[in-house]
Each structure stands twice: as C-alpha cells, then as structure tokens.
C-alpha cells in the first residue's frame, strides 16, 4: 500500500494502484489515473468509467468484462479497444472503485 497525492488529494492505493477509499475519488483523479495507464479519456471512456462508478455505488462492486458489456451495451471488442490492458480492471481503477471479482 502506498500513500500519495493524486489530483491534490492525499490517497492510499493498493499494490495494483486501486484506491483504498473510493469515497475520496474525484473526476480530476480519474484523469490522473488514466494518464498513468497511458489512456487519454474520451467521452466513450467516461461512459464506461461512470458506468463502473454507478455500478459500484448501487451494487457495491464493479462488473467483470462480460457483465459490463451486457449491462452497458458497449460491445466486448470496443471495451478492449478503449482499455487494452483489461476493460473492467482498468475502468474500475480509473473510477476509483475496487478491482472487480469473478473469474468470467
């Protein structure tokens, strides 16, 4: 676990870079985390990030890739082109929520 200042806020992050406290998340922080991942957020990226954030706030966890595609209506192929290093994982990190669980 590391402590750092992200977009002007002191936050703690786990070994993979996920925020320990999702409530500290801001949209400016999302931009900063995306930059670390080599991603410049477009409106389509934001759609996914906000979807993940909303899923976390309503269900307590972000969906895996298949469920994300099914519930957001954004196809699996497009999700991977937006987030090549794993859509659910990367979008969850950018959205400041815990890493999605589940094997499929």
């Amino acid at each position: 676990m590391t402590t750092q200042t992200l977009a002007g806020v002191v936050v703690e992050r786990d070994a993979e870079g996920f925020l320990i406290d999702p409530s500290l998340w801001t949209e400016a922080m999302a931009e900063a985390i995306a930059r670390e991942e080599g991603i410049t957020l477009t409106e389509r990226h934001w759609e996914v990030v906000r979807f993940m954030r909303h899923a976390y706030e309503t269900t307590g966890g972000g969906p895996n890739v298949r469920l994300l595609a099914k519930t957001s209506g954004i196809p699996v192929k497009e999700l991977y082109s937006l987030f090549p290093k794993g859509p659910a994982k990367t979008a969850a990190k950018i959205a400041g929520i815990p890493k999605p669980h589940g094997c499929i």
Partner: protein
Amino acid sequence: MAESITKVSIIVSKGSLEGVYPALIMANGARAEGIEANLFFTFFGLDAIIAKRIEHVKVAAVGNPGLHMASLIGVLPGMSAIATRMLERRMDEKDIPGLPEFIELVADAGCGLYGCRASADLFGFTEADFVPQVKAIITVGELYAMAAGGEIIFT
C-alpha cells in the same frame, strides 16, 4: 512483487465440455488482466471450434469420477447428454456462457484462436469447417514461435 506474466498460450487437447471450459476461463481471465492470450486447439479439442460440433460438445459420462456416478450407468445411451444438460443448466443459472458464446467472448476479448494443422489433416478438416473466430490453422512450429517469451499451458 514477482515478475508478472505477460503472455499465455493455452493448448486445448480434450474434446469434452469439462476439458474445454478451464482453458476458456483461463484465456478470458488472462485478457481481463491485460495479458496476451492465444488458444491452440488440437486433437479432440478441435471439436470446440468446428462449426458443426461446437453445439454438441458434451460432458464425459464414463470414466469421469467427478460426476459421482457409477461408470456402469454412464454407458447407458443418452447419459452423456443428460449430464451435459444438467451442467449447462447449472452454468446458465450462474450466468456462465455456453460454448459458442464463450468462444465469441474470448475472440472479442482479443484472444487468438488457432487450430492444429496435424489434427485438422488427420480428421480431414479445412478452414471452412471452423467457426469464424478461428484465425488460422497453424503448425506446431508456428505455435512455438507465437508462444515465445510467454507461458505454455497444456490442458
């Protein structure tokens, strides 16, 4: 932290449902983690990517202690179909995709799907027999070239 895995090449050699799923789950999981993944189907594993057979891949009813059923019962006609239906119903309840959807999912996730040249020749299959997600039929030499620098997993 230990050095992380960046590429996996998974070989599918079994033609039963329980033989194919672990490989698909591992390939899909690899892609979800941002790991490069390729699936190489060989021998009876080819059934999972043969268009005419993909819907008919079944659970082995004989010689499968995991079913907790006497093999003597497993030999009865239709037992394999019954075991498969039971497992598929359970998977559907748990929202695990069926085989054709799973193959589409891993391909869309950017996993490369390949058939084995020697097996295709042995069984008389050509490119036209495969599901459209299959990129090519390749030789074992091409597999090794593709797998270079990563992990090879045999299932």
